[in-house]
């Protein structure tokens, strides 16, 4: 018998050098950061290095840091969910409706991405501050000056500012997903007597789940890794992993602690990518099994 030869596609061979370059330049720094996170290194006068897990244990043992982790995850969940609630209808409108100004509306929604994060965040500071237009409007509506709620440096303010910039990362995958659904399927549903809502719920929504999952993962990962909005709009009382990382690196000069924060952020991000896909895959398997059993 002849030996089986491994068939490597040509395009793999062609992009392999570039991919190896990228992998080594990402993997190596990541390894260095991971090793650093288990040491007692401090920039400055040389001291003997010791192994420690303190930079990780603080995130689980210390209530202050545990709150930071929970707040980080919650920020991702809240932003993704808010983007989904606002973004799905928009995606459906863009995908299924034709109207004047559609392209302009899509362009307008992309404009936050054209503005730098710092400038954008400072704009939100001016809007939400106690002397800003929102406060002035509330006072004009009769709310006493002393009763105007604190808007800046709150968790909702950070979420709002993130939704402002990340919304299109939810809209575009869902839009793409809905566009891929043949219109004949929805037409068939309506022909068989389903109401528009039932058609959407039974036909369009399930088939757009891949887009929803993709958008949700993208927004979640981007929001937990965001730095400018939590720092500028959330302030030191709304610390998340990224702002603690910056504080530890830049001001405390505690590089191992900053490294540990970075690794923890990476782990959360990996979970955010893997978990929804596993869940979705499992749910779809159940659906197929139920259908095959006549359920």
């Amino acid at each position, binding site marked *: 018998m002849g030996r089986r030869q491994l068939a490597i596609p040509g395009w793999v061979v*062609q992009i392999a050098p570039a*991919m190896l370059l990228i992998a080594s330049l990402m993997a190596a720094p990541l390894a260095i950061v991971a090793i650093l996170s288990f040491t007692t290194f401090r920039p400055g*006068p040389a001291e003997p290095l010791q192994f420690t897990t303190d930079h990780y244990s603080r995130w689980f043992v210390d209530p202050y840091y545990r709150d930071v982790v929970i707040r980080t995850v919650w920020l991702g969940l809240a932003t993704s969910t808010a983007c989904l609630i606002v973004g799905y209808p928009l995606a459906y409108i863009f995908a299924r409706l034709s109207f004047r100004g559609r392209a302009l509306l899509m362009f307008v929604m992309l404009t936050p991405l054209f503005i730098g994060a710092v400038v954008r965040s400072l704009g939100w*500071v001016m809007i939400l501050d*106690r002397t800003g237009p929102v406060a002035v409007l509330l006072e004009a509506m009769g709310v006493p000056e002393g009763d105007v709620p604190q808007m800046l*440096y709150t968790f909702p303010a950070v979420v709002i500012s993130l939704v402002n910039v990340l919304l299109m990362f939810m809209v575009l995958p869902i839009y793409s997903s809905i566009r891929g659904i043949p219109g004949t399927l929805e037409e068939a549903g309506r022909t068989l007597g389903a109401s528009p809502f039932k058609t959407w719920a039974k036909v369009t929504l399930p088939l757009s789940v891949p887009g929803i999952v993709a958008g949700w993962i993208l927004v979640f990962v981007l929001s937990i890794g965001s730095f400018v909005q939590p720092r500028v709009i959330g302030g030191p009382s709304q610390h998340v992993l990224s702002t603690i990382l910056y504080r530890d690196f830049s001001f405390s*000069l505690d590089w191992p602690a900053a490294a540990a924060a970075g690794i923890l952020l990476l782990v959360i991000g990996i979970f955010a990518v893997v978990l929804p896909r596993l869940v979705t895959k499992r749910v779809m398997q159940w659906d197929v099994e139920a259908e095959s059993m006549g359920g």
Partner: protein
Amino acid sequence: MRSFRTRGVVFIATLGVALTACAPGASPSTAPSAGVQSQGAGASDAPALGGELTVQTYGGNWRECMTEHVVEPFEAETGVDVILAEIPTSAEIFSRLQVEAGNPTLDVIVMGTGLDYNAGESGLMEEVDWATEAPNWNQLTPESQQFPKFGPSVGATAIGIAYNADKMPFEPTSWYDLFDERLDGHVGLAADNAFAFALLWFMNEDNGGTVDNFDPGFEQLAKLADLNPIVYTSAAEGETAFVQRDMWAAAINTPRAIGLAREGLPINFVYPEEGGFVWPSSVGIPRGSQNREAAVAYINTWIDAEVQANWATCNNLPPSNAEADLGDYEFADVLTMDKAFPIPWSDIEPHRAELTERYDREITSRAQQ
């Protein structure tokens, strides 16, 4: 044939993306400084050297003032081509110093807030006999010679109380005036920056604390945190807060306060009766610099009395040279270190990490609840 061409395009495009991503990042501004004009007054007797010198700078007014009053006279005198590398924070500079140890890409750097002390003690800086190699060192104030292992100060960061004269119900004369209940909702509280540390250190010292026991300092600052303060994490944010966020009084440095006054705002600046806070902005040469001679000459130019006078009035920093004459400059009375005392960063530095964390937990978190 078409398939091969397509794959070729894909290969080249991918490689291009990879190489672009891996390209060394250019500093925001590494262009050579403009012009080689003789500035006449202000230039020291620097030797003719030629070659290039990479000098770190902060942005904004600092860079403009340095270009006009230091770089251009130096270039005219020595023929050295100065390349400015803009790096905005001492922490970033320190990181770079640490990583490049012995093989620096910068020839002259400026740092403060204790990182200059740290870098000097860590052996990251070139050893220079400043008194001999940079004669203008001998004219500096004692505060400006604090960190000889790093280098001389090129101007002090001086902190006092800036206040809105139109809105303040009284004229502040003491640091404790910031705790007045009439300032509820309108007083500034620094966080995650050197101003915060400075006020914490003072409150601690003034209330019986020591360098090993900061409890009195934190207890005192907690009272400020209970006044619904406006939190700012940088001098620039503090400056903005006066304009945008109805802040009436805060601990701020001279450039920001004078900058606001120059813009026409009713901002006054005073050193409290207890004294303001001051620390040096130290300039030094990373160990292993290939342009040591030019770097020393550059620094000597920078600390020259006449250059210091021009630099101080441009940047609104107290000069480091005792012979610098500010003439009839409008704000000359606040550009002095006589009304401020130096913050002992060498004492604070070993506790930096724990103090930062504790400040976040007990003060800024409390302030924004």
